[in-house]
């Protein structure tokens, strides 16, 4: 039996911050219902590439697929109050956990705030995940993780010295909030089991991100030091960086944090004469630009994987800079295995991602592909929620279930 079998989760959520929390619960057997509407499908379906073969389609989004495997997908048009509101409450009453990531205040405005839902489900656990939190002067400012990662300090710390900040690919901070959001729900589930009490949980993605920066926040308060971007440099190691290899734009990182590792690297390089003057850490730090050039002139003769394996065997920390075309074939990720290939009717074969932690006795999914828009309306509303046929049809006709 999977760890979270039997837990019922409902998502009034879209994009990453809410739904990926649900994905992590679904991977371990929870029944997770993703609510969308034809009026407003999940933004990842609607306007985020990649789409299979670059052809736009609501059921062709790779990003939606990545974030929503093993879920049921239903539509509910919340604009059709009061019937939609009543139906939403019925769904919440069925659930153990509600996840929402609307702008703060939206759920309350729809008549679906925690107090309202608690009326129908007294021990409900509800997670509200937002950019900046449910309270405070900026609470209502909506935004995306790709930009919040800048407000929270991450992009300031990324780039070459003196140059522009660099982007951290996608909604970086969303997935930090995802970890904390799932942790919060799991703790609340355990707490409910022992005390009978539900929970309303407010996570600000901003505040979860700052957890990762605690030492440099302290450094500013204590020492007045403002941490800056400094490419790949590290105060405790040299060499420490990405070094060019044979091939087009191929790289291998090497880091040396002790004299023993340095000696091992020098031996692996076959004792070049220039290495002598870098015998001490202070000498390596003082001449780091030159050191990087000399190490790079040596690494350029190797394939990155060959270099990594040689250095690891010699006792030096090293790693291939995997490209996006390498990760699915990375021998280590493949051996876990990190992905499960499932067939999707419009996408075809897709690699669905397993959790980054494997439970040895209760193996996680994915077991099912992500759902098509509205795929489980009839199953969920009729079988799981117990609506009668006439009642269901009426809601469909009135475009409440839409």
């Amino acid at each position, binding site marked *: 039996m999977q760890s979270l079998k039997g837990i019922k989760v409902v998502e009034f959520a879209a994009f990453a911050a809410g739904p990926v929390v649900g994905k992590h619960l679904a991977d371990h057997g929870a029944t997770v219902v993703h609510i969308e509407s034809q009026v407003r499908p999940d933004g990842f379906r609607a306007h985020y590439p990649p789409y299979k073969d670059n052809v736009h389609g609501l059921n062709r989004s790779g990003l939606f697929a990545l974030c929503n495997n093993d879920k049921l997908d239903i539509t509910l048009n919340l604009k059709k109050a009061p019937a939609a509101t009543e139906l939403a409450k019925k769904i919440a009453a069925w659930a153990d956990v509600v996840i929402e990531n609307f702008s703060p205040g939206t759920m309350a405005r729809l008549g679906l705030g925690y107090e309202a839902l608690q009326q129908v489900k007294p021990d409900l656990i509800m997670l509200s995940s937002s950019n900046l939190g449910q309270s405070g002067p900026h609470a209502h400012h909506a935004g995306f993780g790709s930009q919040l990662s800048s407000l929270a300090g991450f992009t300031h710390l990324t780039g070459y010295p003196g140059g522009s900040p660099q982007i951290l690919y996608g909604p970086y901070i969303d997935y930090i909030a995802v970890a904390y959001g799932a942790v919060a729900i799991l703790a609340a589930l355990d707490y409910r089991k022992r005390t009978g009490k539900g929970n309303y949980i407010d996570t600000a993605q901003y505040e979860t991100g700052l957890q990762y920066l605690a030492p440099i926040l302290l450094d500013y308060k204590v020492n007045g030091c403002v941490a800056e971007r400094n490419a790949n440099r590290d105060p405790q190691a040299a060499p420490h960086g990405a070094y060019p290899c044979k091939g087009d734009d191929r790289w291998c990182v090497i880091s040396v944090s002790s004299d023993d590792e340095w000696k091992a690297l020098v031996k692996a390089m076959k004792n070049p004469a220039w290495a002598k003057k870098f015998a001490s850490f202070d000498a390596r730090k003082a001449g780091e630009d030159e050191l990087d050039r000399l190490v790079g002139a040596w690494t350029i003769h190797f394939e990155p994987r060959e270099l990594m394996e040689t250095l690891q065997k010699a006792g030096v920390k090293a790693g291939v800079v995997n490209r996006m075309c390498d990760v699915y074939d990375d021998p280590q990720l493949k051996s876990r295995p990190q992905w499960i290939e499932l067939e999707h009717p419009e996408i075809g074969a897709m690699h669905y991602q397993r959790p*980054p932690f494997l439970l040895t006795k209760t193996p996680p999914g994915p077991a099912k592909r992500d759902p098509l828009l509205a795929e489980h309306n009839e199953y969920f509303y009729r079988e799981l929620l117990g609506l009668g046929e006439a009642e269901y049809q009426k809601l469909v006709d009135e475009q409440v279930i839409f």
Partner: protein
Amino acid sequence: MGSANRNEGLLSPFRVLDLTDELGFLCGKILGDLGADVIKIERPGGDPARRLGPFYKDEPDPEKSLYWFGFNNNKRGVTLDLEKSEGQKLFARLAAKADFVLETFTPSFLDKLKSGYAALTKNNPKLVWVSITPFGQSGPYSKFHASDIEIMALSGCMSLTGDPGRPPLRVTFPQSYSWTGSYAAMGALTAHYHRQNTGEGQQVDVSAQAVMLWAFSHAHVFWDLNRHVEKRAGSFMTGRSITGAKMRVFWPCKDGYLNFIIYGGEAGRRTNQALVDWMNSKNMAPEFLKQKDWKTFDIAKVTQEEIDRMEEPIAEFFTTVTKAEFFKEVVKREMLGYPVASVKEIFEDPQHAARDFWREIEHPELGVSLTYPGPFARFSNGACDVWRRAPLIGEHNEEIYCDELGLTKAELNKLKREKVI
């Protein structure tokens, strides 16, 4: 500040033994934030990570590492040498009463010391044993050594960061350790929930490389679906348009940089209109931007030419504003976008003060209180907070070994003499 009572924490009945290095520090801290009784077990003389900077008043000292302070608060601390047989016995006694063990040793290292998962769950099958390593417990890289930069490289993150033609980059302040610690906490509590239901404990095998696939998600999906390789693009965003158009993300302003992106979707269209209105109020909006019909603007189909044409006047406008002005206007005008903040500006953000986020935690031996990031979540029932500063070396040896485990003072002193603790 802070409710200062760990017993109100959601996980207060549970005990955690934390044998991690920096790869796992945050996992124990998160369980501690939720009220669990976390005992950090260090080698005699202290954990090597106490040598990591920055340091309090820039004085390198194992009791003054801000790195240690930041990720090991909410833990008590004992010392213990697991390579000595007396140390192993003591660890077995602690583990018999624990709910979680967190460890970051090379796979099979603890087994050789008869202190691994197999040995210690004989007496405590309910244990949730969280093994956190760069690559996981098995597989061809499982014995590889890695620090942050190797994890960032092998997960693919670095291939997406930096300017084309220059070396790929990591984030200067290590990120993969924190990511791994927090996802390990998710794994720990997933297994915990199962244990509470069934009485069955298990080993949780966490891979930092696999964790970091999420950090730079979803770039690899472009390869999976369309055999397209997303690459580092400097300060531009790629992958939003099926035409391959890239959008500028970072814009120089009067006193630094702004993060602003021409988005599509409802929020994007609203933002673009609001920006044009704002530019227009300063007579800086060209006619073609004013005439633009944002309702039909489709980011997924936009061409590079169209993006470039729009970005030129926007770039000019942004050089006339400060970060603070920009922040004020995006909030007021409900636009997407934020300034690129440094740690200094994070402290100045009124949102944190209004939410009572910061925590002053006393460090009596330094004679000061230090300011910490506060709770990661607010719960209506049960607390999550910062209860105590990080432990000094061996600070709770007597409290835990004598008061809780029942050793006599004489036995404790003997263990100290034998350098077991």
